[in-house]
């Protein structure tokens, strides 16, 4: 069966129709076209491109990466060329990719988030933004907005006013109660929640006696974080009504199914793209196989049954 047409996998997130629940995570899939050599992008439900901010950002100094047990730390720090460049140059390159092209929006102030959202609102072929209030790799803003329910609420309200299309808000796991943040974001007008962003971590070179990242701390991703991500999705699915996009350590279709079972409507593949650049397409096939094997008529039948 051609998965492109496996109707059982279709899901919707507010106004955005996804041909299947498989999306790719911001910061791990470039602007999509980098993967054209390895797979057909139109097999995917959606692609979330790298974080875009108000103006050009150089990000953090090298080294920005450290491998850990079943995972990696990154300290990229939102390197990107800013919203102007995005609208002027990148948008043209991605606007005809035949899947939902979602932009991850970041900033250091409410004004910056709003400005970027407003500009993207005008781009016809961007059906949704993912508001990144959970990046642990920048000093100002980023995770701060995502760890305080009041700040989270403020930024979401402000962006909601400026942005008409599907508004996904990406949550941080580095909080005492992710449910509290999720509820605040829900009440402030978000259409969907995606989670989790990276866990706040660090790595050390014992021989050289120094940190492995230039910023000392960074964001942990990969299979190591999956148990935390599943717990977050499960908690939030039980206590809010918004469609959830599950993220964290998904390496294969079984992992994706686990997220759907605990309540995710869609999922995003992150770090796995580095190891197998065609994994996201393979996971789409894997989902169809799972439905076949378990005789399931529509993926929604198993959503949130745990």
């Amino acid at each position: 069966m051609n998965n492109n047409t496996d109707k059982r996998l279709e899901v919707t997130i507010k106004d955005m129709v996804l041909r299947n629940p498989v999306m790719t995570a911001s910061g791990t899939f470039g602007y999509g076209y980098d993967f054209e050599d390895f797979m057909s992008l139109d097999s995917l439900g959606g692609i979330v491109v790298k974080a875009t901010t108000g103006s050009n950002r150089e990000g953090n100094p090298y080294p920005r990466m450290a491998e850990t047990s079943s995972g990696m730390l990154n300290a990229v720090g939102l390197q990107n060329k800013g919203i102007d460049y995005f609208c002027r140059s990148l948008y043209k390159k991605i606007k005809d990719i035949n899947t939902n092209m979602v932009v991850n929006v970041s900033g250091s102030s409410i004004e910056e988030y709003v400005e970027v959202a407003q500009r993207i609102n005008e781009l016809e072929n961007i059906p949704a933004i993912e508001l990144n209030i959970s990046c642990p790799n920048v000093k100002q803003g980023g995770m701060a907005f995502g760890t305080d329910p009041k700040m989270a609420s403020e930024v979401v309200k402000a962006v909601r006013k400026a942005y008409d299309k599907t508004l996904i808000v990406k949550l941080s796991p580095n909080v005492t109660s992710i449910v509290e943040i999720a509820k605040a974001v829900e009440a402030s007008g978000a259409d969907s929640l995606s989670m989790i962003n990276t866990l706040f971590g660090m790595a050390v070179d014992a021989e050289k006696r120094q940190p492995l990242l230039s910023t000392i701390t960074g964001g942990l991703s990969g299979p190591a974080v999956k148990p935390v991500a599943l717990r977050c999705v499960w908690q939030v699915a039980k206590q809010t009504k918004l469609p959830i996009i599950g993220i964290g350590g998904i390496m294969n279709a079984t992992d994706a199914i686990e997220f759907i079972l605990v309540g995710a409507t869609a999922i995003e593949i992150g770090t796995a793209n580095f190891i197998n650049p065609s994994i996201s397409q393979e996971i789409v096939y894997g989902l169809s196989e799972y439905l076949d094997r378990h005789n399931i008529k529509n993926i929604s039948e198993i959503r949130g049954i745990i």
Partner: protein
Amino acid sequence: MKYCKDFIVVENETITPTLFILKLQYLETLPEIKAGQFVEIMVKGEANVFLRRPISIHDVDKDRNQISLLIQIVGKGTEELSKLKKGESLNLIFPLGNGFTIIGKKVLLVGGGCGAAPLLYLARVLKQNQIKSDILIGCRDIKQLFSKKEYESLSNLHIATEDGSCGIKGLVTSHPILDEDFDSIYCCGPTPMMKAISKLAKERNIPCYVSLEHKMACGFGVCLCCVVDTNQGNKRTCTTGPIFLSSELKDF
């Protein structure tokens, strides 16, 4: 075009206890590969390595559709690769990176230790293009020297060993060949060596290309982990590099 495909190990040759050459068979026709490009290897096995490992392409045999990799054991991934046996398969993403830009008609290649890996294929390409090259290899002692015959057949080989067991005694930077005039220099090896050669080249206004071995998560431009500070800001080593004109690098 980049590929993500399996190769078959046809030979695993031990050079020293920590240095080996993998010869890999491709089952299709190899695409165009530029000297200085690299591959990203999926490391299977009990070492439980999470990310792929970037390794330069040491040599290419177009007729046989084979490539070879020169690898130094420095940690668990390279250790695991050293155990590969003839017939086992290895998944590679390739070819990655920009490769060397060839400038001029008389060029110098400088390599230190296992960093010299990409120079063999460069020397081969230069010869194919009838460009006269000298190659200067530095290493600890004669035991660390590899592919000597190949180098000799492709280029004028000059050697510097720390203990004088082959060529001149001392560091590459003290070799007299450096006093000659060249249109460009291609340098691969430990960072201090590359910096020293770059400095020398700068003084004499010779373009000098260096190969950076930055830590990479993806190797094909999407993670932004591998950046290097250049005159135009942070650039990805894996796509803009790994070969850079040293004058473009802030640190050089």
